[in-house]
């Protein structure tokens, strides 16, 4: 399956900005199930300096420095990716009991080096007994890890309401757990917090998801958004992705950009500007499925 994604960010400032430094996590990773076919990054004003590197987690980082005085900053990330099918849940039945995975990670960390960075609490996602308790009726004794993770995905979807007004990027997890509403980022953090409170390894994945317009209506440009979900470490199958917002195992409609311990490791764009006063942010994302034969030039 091939997709084209356009992700545009516009910051408008009340006062002129004389210097702007931005750190981006916008270019998609290569994974066994995903190949990035093409990538372009456009920025207005034109950056005085631009560099890129792979970070500790293997994500693409772009550093931009704008020195031209400006009141509007516009960054557009545009790319095409090719997705391969992932195994369905029926192919994942051999995952070990979750207690067994927990014990392995605690006792033999050196044998699970790719998982150990993702076991511990972070400042944004603290572990707690409340979170462990929340997951407990999914993680029943001797239940297989991935089966339990799917149950937790369903539980979050069933018990929480999607509400873009209820939270923002800084809302603490306790509040989300109490309020029972939030957005994909909150649900991903919630699931991560619960899994780590049980001593399991999981990571925060940021990316995009294909949305389906109502039947008979055209796809709207810019109506999509960044998305986030959770990847769970299984010693048998490796990393398996669950989307608590959409109550599904991740298949061929999720485009992966970056992953880390939580949102803080992968936020699409963060920055420091001199001047500016108050700022306004507009983000628009368009995900377009492409027929394999009609490859658009981007």
């Amino acid at each position, binding site marked *: 399956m091939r997709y084209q994604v356009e992700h545009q*960010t516009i*910051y408008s400032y009340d006062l002129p900005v*004389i*210097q702007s*430094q931005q*750190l981006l996590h916008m270019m998609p990773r290569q994974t066994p199930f995903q190949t990035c076919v093409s990538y372009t990054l456009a920025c207005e004003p034109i950056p*005085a*300096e631009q*560099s890129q*590197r792979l*970070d*500790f*987690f293997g994500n693409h980082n772009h*550093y931009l*420095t704008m*020195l031209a005085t400006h009141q509007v900053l516009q960054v557009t990330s545009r790319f095409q990716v090719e997705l391969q099918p992932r195994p369905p849940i029926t192919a994942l039945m051999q995952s070990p009991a979750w207690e067994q995975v927990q014990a392995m990670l605690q006792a033999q*960390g*050196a044998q699970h*080096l790719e998982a*150990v*960075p993702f*076991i*511990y*609490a*972070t*400042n944004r996602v603290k*572990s707690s*007994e409340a979170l462990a308790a929340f997951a407990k009726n999914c993680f029943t004794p001797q239940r297989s890890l991935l089966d339990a993770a799917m149950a937790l995905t369903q539980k979050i979807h069933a018990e929480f309401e999607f509400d873009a007004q209820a939270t923002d*990027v*800084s809302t603490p997890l306790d509040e989300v757990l109490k309020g029972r509403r939030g957005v994909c980022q909150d649900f991903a953090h919630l699931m991560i917090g619960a899994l780590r409170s049980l001593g399991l390894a999981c990571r925060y994945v940021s990316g995009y998801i294909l949305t389906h317009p109502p039947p008979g209506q055209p796809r709207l440009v810019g109506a999509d958004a*960044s998305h986030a979900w959770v990847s769970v470490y299984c010693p048998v199958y490796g990393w398996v992705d669950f989307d608590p917002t959409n109550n599904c195992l991740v298949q061929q409609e999720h485009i992966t950009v970056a992953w*880390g311990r939580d*949102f*803080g*490791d992968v*936020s*699409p*764009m*963060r*920055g*420091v*500007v*001199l*001047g*500016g*006063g108050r*700022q306004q*942010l507009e*983000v628009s994302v368009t995900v377009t499925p492409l027929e394999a034969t009609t490859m658009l030039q981007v």
Partner: protein
Amino acid sequence: MQSVLNQLYFSDRYNELLDSSGQARPHWQALVSQLETEEPTAMRKRIEAVQRQIRDNGVTYNVYADTHGVQRPWDLDVLPLIIPQEEWQHIAASVAQRATLLNRVLLDIYGEQRLLSSGQLPPALIYGHSGFLPSCVGIPHYDNMALHSYAVDLARAPNGQWWVVSDRTQTPTGAGYALENRTIISSAFPELFRDLNIERLSGFFASMRDSLAHWGHRVAANQAQTVPGVTALGQGEPPLIVILTPGPYNETYHEQSFLAGYLGYPLVHGSDLTVRNGIVWLKTIAGLKPVHVILRRIDDDYCDPLELNADSLLGVAGLTQAARLGNVLIANALGSNVLQSGALLGFLPNLCQSLLGEALRMPSVATWWCGEPAALEYVIQHLDELVIKPAYPQLRSSPIFGEDLNASQKESFIAKLRAQPGHYIAQEQVDISHAPVLTNHHQQPQLGTLAVSLRVYAFATPNGYAILPGGLSRVASGKDARVVTMQRGGTSKDTWVLSQDSQPPFSLLRKTNSSQDLVRENAYLSSRMAENLFWYGRYSVRNLQKAITLRATIRALVEYTPESRAGEWPTMQGLCQWFELLPSPKDEEESANWQPWTDDDIEPLLVQAVFSQQSTSLATSVQQLFQQAFNLRERISNDHWRTVNVLSRLFITRHQHASLQDALSYIEQAINHFVTLTGFAMDWMTRDLGWRFMSLGRRIERLQFMCVLLSRALNMPQHSNLEWLLQVTNNLVTYRARYAAQPEWLPVLDLLLMDENNPNSVVFQINGLVKYLEEMDAQDNAGGIATELNGCWQTLLQLDPDQCFIAGNAALADWLNQTYNVTLNLSDRLSMRFFSYASPLVTPGY
């Protein structure tokens, strides 16, 4: 001899002073005989001298630093801790070995992580520690050195052995305090200090400067090689090394400013630095200067809001990337906090064997990390003998002594341990040694003993670690004598290491080799400091003028009848309104109907103008002045600072029912202090670039006031009493000496406008401004401002005094307005030209 030592009691602990038979140990004998032979009064005087010197030097430690400048004086015991040479050699070698080992561990954690993959370090110690910063993995280090500065807290067990209690690897503090302690205590016991042949501290700091300069040159070479347009350092040109401070409210800010002065490095804030082209630059009055080395006192994750903690307003955006490119050396390397964990202690003996191939020379206090199942069980079994502490600094909690817990507390605590064992370490509760302390008790010096710990400092050189021969000894005097920390009211001690070699007689501070090394200007004046000085100058003068105007107004109210002050009274009230000491009309309608206050109405308003908590009162503007002075603490002398301090305390207490007389008396006291500050500005500060910025501020403020005053005065009736004009400009004495008669317009205006020798005249301010601006920027007169001011002066000279120097003259009023506008413009242009740095706005990400 018995008389003194009898004051000491015996215990199971090791006693630093006494041996097991109650005799003074050999290395203490010289000090003991001084105590024995000296009159108690002489010893009392030594104690008092130490306390006085701490106050005079302004040595402070901010415990609850706040905007009111509550600072605690540093606490220092008069008796040093004495350590014999052989013992010191063991300590120094052990500390150097430990620093070397920890540096290797740090390099591995942020490098290949072999200790992790080989199972020598459990992953929790790295990934469970919030001090581990993934962004810092892979940053290169010059000479494989990441832990440049290291400190370790030692304590002595009952058997006389020294043990390590904890490591300080992020921004070790206290070496500056150790240096100040030495200065004070060595002068309290000058003869003893000389005779005992004590190891000097200055060599350590000299080698620190050499090391940083060495790495600074390496960084400079890298910058020149990799960044187009950056030139290599010239022959003999020193690299730029700065100390990065979190600011004056940090608990050890005093130490930071002291070390900056001692080492000769600029003390900078994050906003003084900027990253461009992967290089860190210092924003100075003369433009951007590349920085080579940053000695930081800001915590790791607060150093870079772009890549690390976005909540930080203290750091420098892009610093991590600059370090990654090898374009700046940060001491310590970002991420070094990860080593600061009690959980690591138990792993060090094995790590030392495997990394250095030798045994760990000095053991740590027995420590169990509860993350290991066997350790957890041991800890639960032996809880009574153990102290439980958080395993990582992010888990902020106080030590818990097992022996303090009752049965039910113990049970719930064990449940907590079992729930998150990895979050806790347990340490053996050690009875640490006691050292003698001497305190004044009811005016009598009294000898006692207190538990002591010793902080030892190491600093990296390209050839290994140098150790400060001495250190910061601390005795517990807080509530809980089992915890030794300055935060909880501990007392510090100087540490004397006895030497076999004779010591160089002088401190190496500012060792000058030849006249070529003489320095006449501070090399770098940061834009922030220039702006602080500028505003300090303005606030000082504004405060003085406010006070004098208020005094003149109150005196006129008290001394004259309404009829006899009718001419000038509305103008005086108007001037108070300009200073916002009295409320102004809110809109045009109010303004049109405005009537001067009656005497009964204005009296309470004038009292309020002095004492009220409102933002415009004299009391409040004095606090603003204090703030401004605090921002340039390291630039002003202690005497100067003390005056500001006393002045600010004058208005700290509230005055609920103050009278007009009270107001007058406080104004008089305040004016005395303001005039003292003027004296410091005129005759007590070096006239460098920074001084010029302060003087520009003073003159601009003065000139604006004179313009406003005179243009308002010109509106007074012809026959008004002009004496108050002379009072508020401090010209009364001069006028009376020159003219016997009542003040008249022409001679008054001549004195206030034209007299070039009168520091209280308009022309004096203009001439000064032109001079300083030209000195600062000879090429273009600071963007033509000086020329404009000169133009003002020429225009004034063209006015005919006989025609124009009279009430109601329009030409003079015009000139005053124009000149006022030039000064407004001047202030803005100075800001644009020299202070153009802004506070960053951080976008945490979406």
